[in-house]
C-alpha cells in the first residue's frame, strides 16, 4: 500500500475483473442457442474465478482473474428430427447454459463495475481534498 494512488489502482483491478466478467457473460448469452451434435462436446457456460492479489504486491492488492471454469452438468437432449445436427434417433444436444442465471450475473457484474467506479471517485475526491489542506 505504498503508492499514493494505491486505492485508484486497486479499484482499477476491480473494474478490470468486472469488465472481464461481463465479457464472459456476453459470451455465454451469445451462445445460448449453440446446439451441437450428440457426439460432440456441448457448449458449457464459462465462469470466471476471482482471486485476490497479495496486498504486499506492487499494486497493493485488488482482484485478478484466477481462472475459467465450465459449468458442470448434463446437456439436455432435444428432439428435433428435422435438424441437420440430429443424430439417428432425432436428437440434438442443447447447451449447459442458463439464460436467467446469466442475466442475474450480468446485473451483479454491472453493479460490481459501478461499485468500483464509486470507490475510485471517492479516492480521487479524497486526494483532491488533501491537496487543499492548509490552504489560506
Amino acid at each position, binding site marked *: 500500500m505504498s503508492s499514493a*494512488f494505491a486505492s*485508484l*489502482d486497486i*479499484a*482499477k483491478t476491480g*473494474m*478490470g475483473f468486472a*469488465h472481464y466478467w461481463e465479457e464472459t457473460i456476453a459470451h455465454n448469452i451469445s451462445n445460448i442457442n449453440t446446439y451441437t451434435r450428440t457426439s460432440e462436446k456441448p457448449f458449457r457456460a464459462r465462469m470466471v474465478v476471482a482471486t485476490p492479489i497479495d496486498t504486499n504486491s506492487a499494486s497493493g492488492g485488488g482482484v485478478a482473474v484466477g481462472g475459467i471454469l465450465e459449468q458442470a452438468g448434463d446437456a439436455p437432449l432435444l428432439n428435433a428430427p428435422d435438424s441437420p445436427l440430429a443424430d439417428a434417433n432425432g436428437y440434438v444436444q442443447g447447451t449447459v447454459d442458463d439464460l436467467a442465471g446469466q442475466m442475474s450475473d450480468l446485473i451483479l457484474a454491472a453493479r460490481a463495475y459501478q461499485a468500483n*467506479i464509486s470507490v*475510485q471517485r471517492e479516492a*480521487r475526491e479524497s*486526494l*483532491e481534498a488533501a*491537496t*487543499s489542506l492548509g*490552504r*489560506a
Partner: protein
Amino acid sequence: MPLTSIASIAPIGASGSQGVGGSKSGGGFGDLITKGIDNVNGLQQAADAALSSFASGGPVQIHEVMAATSKATLGMQVMVEIRNRALEAYQQISNIQV
C-alpha cells in the same frame, strides 16, 4: 608539476560546496522538486500513452484510461499546489521590512 597541483584542489571544492539549502549530495529542495516534476511528467506521459492506445483500438480498457488521467490530474494539482506554497513563502520573505 602544475597538473598535480590542480588535482589536489578538486576535493576541497567538493567538500566545501554547502549551499544555502544545505545540499550535501544533491538532496536539497530543488532536487526534490525536480524529482516531483519528473514523476508528474511520467504520469502525464502514461495517461497520454493510454489514451492514444485506446483511441487507436489498442488492448487498453476505458477505465484504465480514466485511472491514468485521474492520476495525471492529481499529480498536476499537487505540483501546482506545492509551487503556490513555495512562491507564497518566498513572497513572505521578500516582503520583510528592513
